[in-house]
């Protein structure tokens, strides 16, 4: 759900009197690809919210009489090896994918953001040690770390969120720290300090709000990879457990087995994952260009 505020958050640099619609129209004109990404993400959010209305069947009800059915009027995207309706499962999968993606991105970014804020603000030895510890976490490939974590924590939605958020922490901390380092030297911070404002208050009240631009950029950029990692973990059987329909698990072993007989089993969930990640990447790129030109191309 963090996606909608992000789309509206564009006015960061805009004049106060221009309305939301004017700003949105300007965004669409200037960043058509980003706007397309925004539309994809909005569709995904709406699908997740109204999954119960959009479904045509119970996503977890099996039907032994109609397994591996091809797409038809009754089952728009066909059925899987247990006779479950693929369309309804994909619609509900959007919910799982979005909840896990947004929750893990937010958890990782907020934790990482706080670490980055404090590390950058305090500086000195604290900063040095924190950076080395983050090096350690960042040294492991995101997926390998998430794999080990989710295996260690055991399968549950909550644990998958934690497993995906941990690799995000060092990335978030880096981004926020570097922006804190430059903000820290600004005169208004010095002014606040010389007025006798407490350190923690300076950090959280005066510096933190100014990192919101990079923070939004960071979150949209990480959302895509969080969705991708969730799909991969679920594909490997280490992600979201049954009965929640997850796009990744829909592609898992059973799908591979029946792929030849029923290619729709492989095609549709993969398209759903790709569109979701595609949308959040497009939106993330456009927001980065708009909100934080310094990060362009990184």
């Amino acid at each position, binding site marked *: 759900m963090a996606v909608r505020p992000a789309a509206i958050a564009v006015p960061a640099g805009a004049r106060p009197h221009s309305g939301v619609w004017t700003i949105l129209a300007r965004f669409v004109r200037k960043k058509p690809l980003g706007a397309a990404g925004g539309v994809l993400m909005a569709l995904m959010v709406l699908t997740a919210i109204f999954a119960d209305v959009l479904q045509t069947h119970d996503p977890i009800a099996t039907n032994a009489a109609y397994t591996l059915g091809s797409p038809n009027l009754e089952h728009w995207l066909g059925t899987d090896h247990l006779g479950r309706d693929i369309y309804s499962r994909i619609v509900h999968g959007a919910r799982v994918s979005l909840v896990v993606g947004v929750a893990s991105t937010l958890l990782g970014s907020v934790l990482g953001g706080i670490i980055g804020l404090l590390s950058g603000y305090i500086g000195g030895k604290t900063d040095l040690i924190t950076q080395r510890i983050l090096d350690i976490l960042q040294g492991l490939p995101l997926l390998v770390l998430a794999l080990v974590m989710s295996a260690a924590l055991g399968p549950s939605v909550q644990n998958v969120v934690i497993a995906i958020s941990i690799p995000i922490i060092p990335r978030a901390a880096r981004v926020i720290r570097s922006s804190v380092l430059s903000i820290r030297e600004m005169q208004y911070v010095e002014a606040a300090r010389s007025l006798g404002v407490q350190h923690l208050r300076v950090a959280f009240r005066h510096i933190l709000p100014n990192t919101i631009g990079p923070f939004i950029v960071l979150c949209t950029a990480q959302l*895509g990879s969080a969705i991708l990692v969730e799909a991969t973990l679920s594909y490997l059987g280490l992600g979201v457990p049954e009965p929640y329909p997850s796009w990744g698990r829909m592609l898992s072993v059973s799908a591979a087995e029946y*792929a030849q007989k029923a290619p729709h089993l492989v095609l549709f969930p*993969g398209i759903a994952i790709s569109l979701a990640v595609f949308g959040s990447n497009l939106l993330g790129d456009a927001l980065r260009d708009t909100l934080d030109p310094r990060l362009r191309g990184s």
Partner: protein
Amino acid sequence: MKTYIVQRLLIALLTLLGMSMVIFVLLRLAPGDIVDILFATAGYISPSEKQAIMKELGIDRPYVIQYLDWLHQIVTGDLGKSYRYDLPAWEVIRPLVPVTLELAALSMVFAVLLGLPAGVVSAVRQDTTLDYLLRVFSLAGLAMPSFWLGMVIILGLVTWLAWIPPLTYVSPTKDLKLHAIQFLLPALAVGYRSSALIMRITRSSLLEVMREDYIRTAWAKGQTGRIVIWRHALKNALLPVVTVIGIEFAFLIGGLVVTETVFNLPGVARFLVQAILWRDYPVVQNLVMFTAIVVILSNLIVDMLYGVLDPRVRYGG
């Protein structure tokens, strides 16, 4: 330069030590151990029997001792014994290493061959239809899960060419052609993603360099476009590209985990997943540690390459 390398190596060693602690602790958080899993199918197991097995495997000792023991093993090159296979861990891993290395190298070749020229073309033809097409193509590469792409490739081959990929690994000495096909397809699936990253960074880095004064001078001298771009601009635009290639090479292992599973290749990455599921601590520990070492080494090599590519970079100064 020498002091710089020594310094970097020391930091790398410290980082590796930290990583070993993180890996060790993470794996101990896992519920259930190998004994539970081994006997899950057998039903009942008497506590004394379980105790004896744990003792034999050495997992009844305090964690600190287990950790120190592991460190000692790494330093001496002995990687312990795989619980699951009842063999030295190294013996289990060794035959898998060439498979993964070959796949990683091929993927990287694909990624560079696809990504670098695409990035250059995209930058030179900025904001044209071709640029937009290439950018969408690269964004698609970042969006598609590589395991799914692999499945679709197999599906396409089966459906349209009626060609069924070999279900087991074919060694190059046995059938070189089949071996090549077996590796090229997954390499393409994995390399596509990395190529997208390389293309994006090449494009933005080249665009930045093309705005510099010396490029305008080169144009003004009447140099042909090809020479300006490939000889003058790209040379300076390569630095961030090399960084990405270095990072990507290390991170390929993430993409390989699933691709090796999809294509049924007996590599290290696929084995890692199986070992995690079995809680085969020595194997997982060592494989993840192996990944960490690869990551740190490639970071180090990238740093060293900077000096070669850009004489302005001075070490230790």
